[in-house]
């Protein structure tokens, strides 16, 4: 009985400790991640005013008792100036979608190359993929500007070699945006693709080739279906942040390459219309809800399907 008591006493702090381990991050994230989103939703339904903060409180208790300043005016404004707000929204989706495709076009052969290399080359190539991922994306975009500028490296080299007669306008075009997106998000597409490709059984491909399958047949019937989870995971990792991207359209895009992130930024910092900025944030979240929920659903499926394998975890 005494031993039973002892066990109880030992377990008591353990149970409290367990609660604490769960409660600490849960409370932190509830306060600093979930509450802010609720607050943004609230501000998106208030009206702007001159002062600090530059918006009316949504509700409160004043001298005359409970009051609210609820208005759907900000969303009405988004609808009224449809082309100013939904235009950038469609543009964001379009640019993010094609950026994802371009990333996939390069990442797929790169990941295949890495996965099919011998162990030494695989490590080197993986480090080469990870290296830009660890360096500041702002600085990489800045480096790209030096390349694409009218008086930048590419134009200077082209002129010097006599390939072009006059500098080509590359900055502030869709091209510069796509280059920026590829530069920023390519590693995020390569890593999940590599993770599925390295698990792909080479015997399967040999068997298919022995049976007379052509390259395209093998790709369509074996490689593509088996790497599909990697394609989906990588595409979500690129598409979701690309839709809300701010730095790339701000530094590489011109006045025509409006994206939602840039519009939100302008409303907030330049026009100081915080309620409209909040409404844009909510619109951005609404657009991303479907891919985000789909990503979580995919994650959940992977977690169930994943078999613990130390070597893969080290490699990934």
């Amino acid at each position, binding site marked *: 009985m005494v031993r039973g008591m002892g066990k109880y006493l*030992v377990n008591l*702090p*353990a149970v409290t*400790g*367990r609660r604490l*381990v*769960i409660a*600490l*991050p849960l409370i*932190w*994230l509830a306060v*600093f*991640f*979930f*509450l*802010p989103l609720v*607050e*943004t939703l609230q501000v998106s339904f208030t009206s702007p005013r001159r002062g600090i*903060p530059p918006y009316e409180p949504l509700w409160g208790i004043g001298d005359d008792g409970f009051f609210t300043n609820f208005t759907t005016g900000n969303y009405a404004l988004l609808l009224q100036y449809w082309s100013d707000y939904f235009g950038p929204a469609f543009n964001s989706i379009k640019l993010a979608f094609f950026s994802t495709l371009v990333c996939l076009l390069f990442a797929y052969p790169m990941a295949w*190359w890495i996965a099919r290399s011998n162990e030494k080359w695989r*490590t080197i190539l*993986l*480090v080469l993929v990870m*290296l*830009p991922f660890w*360096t*500041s994306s*702002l*600085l*990489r975009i*800045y*480096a*790209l*500007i*030096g*390349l694409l*500028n009218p*008086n*930048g*490296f590419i*134009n200077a080299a082209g002129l010097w070699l006599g390939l072009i007669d006059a500098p080509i306008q590359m900055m502030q075009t869709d091209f510069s945006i796509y*280059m920026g997106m590829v530069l920023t998000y390519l590693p995020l597409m390569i890593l999940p693709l590599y993770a599925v490709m390295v698990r792909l059984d080479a015997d399967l*491909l040999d068997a298919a080739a022995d049976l007379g399958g052509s390259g395209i047949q*093998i790709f369509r019937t074996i490689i593509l279906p088996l790497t599909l989870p990697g394609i989906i995971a990588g595409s979500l990792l690129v598409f*979701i942040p690309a839709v809300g991207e701010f*730095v790339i359209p*701000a*530094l590489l895009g011109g006045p025509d390459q409006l994206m939602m*992130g840039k519009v*939100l*930024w302008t409303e*907030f910092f330049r026009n100081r219309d915080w309620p409209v*900025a909040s409404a844009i*944030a909510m619109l*951005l979240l609404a657009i991303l809800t479907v891919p*985000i929920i789909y990503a979580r659903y995919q994650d959940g499926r992977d977690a169930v399907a994943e078999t*613990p*394998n*130390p070597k893969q975890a080290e490699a*990934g």
Partner: protein
Amino acid sequence: MGRMNGLVLSLGALGFGILYLPIIIMVIFSFNAGKLVSVWSGASLKWYAGLLENDQLLSAFGTSLLIAVWAATIATIFGICIAVAFVRFGNFRSRLALSAIASAPLVMPEIVTGLSMLLLFISMESLFGWPSGRGVDTIIIAHATFGMCFAAVVIQARLRDFDMAIEEAAADLGATQPFIFLSITLPVIAPAVVAAWLLAFTLSFDDLVIASFVSGPGSSTLPIVIFSKVRLGVTPEINALATVMIVVVAVAVIGASWAIRRRLSGRDQNQ
């Protein structure tokens, strides 16, 4: 497959080219005496010298370093908690809530996170008087918040591979849970904890968007200063700064992967 390989290799090489050409050109032209990133006008270290005298960049560097160290440390501690809860605690009551709230920041657009954090800080200030104004502390909180979710992912992967039987054996021998965690679990997951800290540090050190919202006067981080300079045009000092930062990261990443490789091969020989 022979025909495919040519296409695979050339697209792959082009991909690596896109990743590296801008960086390589920038590094080369950081030693250029002239201002342009296109015309070579002789080798010079003057932009590096200018860097050392640029108080604005240096103080922003210090601010960023301070913020990133604190944010990464908080993020790693909370990230360990999240990872331990998911991998070791089975089905606890708030599991679904924690998993939703710990993975949402991973996919939330930065610009939404930044805006909403600022709105929270402002309404907290008017309610409780804290935080008074925005500055280093609010940036640390914001960075720790999304950093811990990334840290949790890294640590979870390692914790999941770790054999629970060792912990159970220690518990059967009468060790308390905190003791088991500190003497067995933590040393085993240490590489992942270090990786998580470095990831959280990098995310904080590189963040422009969130910091722009939650920073105050006098707490400009390095990316904020760089962004404002780059908007005005190409500044050669930034070439020098970027080169220094890329060299530091490259040495760290290559060194770390070399160390991991050595550890792995050492482990294979022991088995």
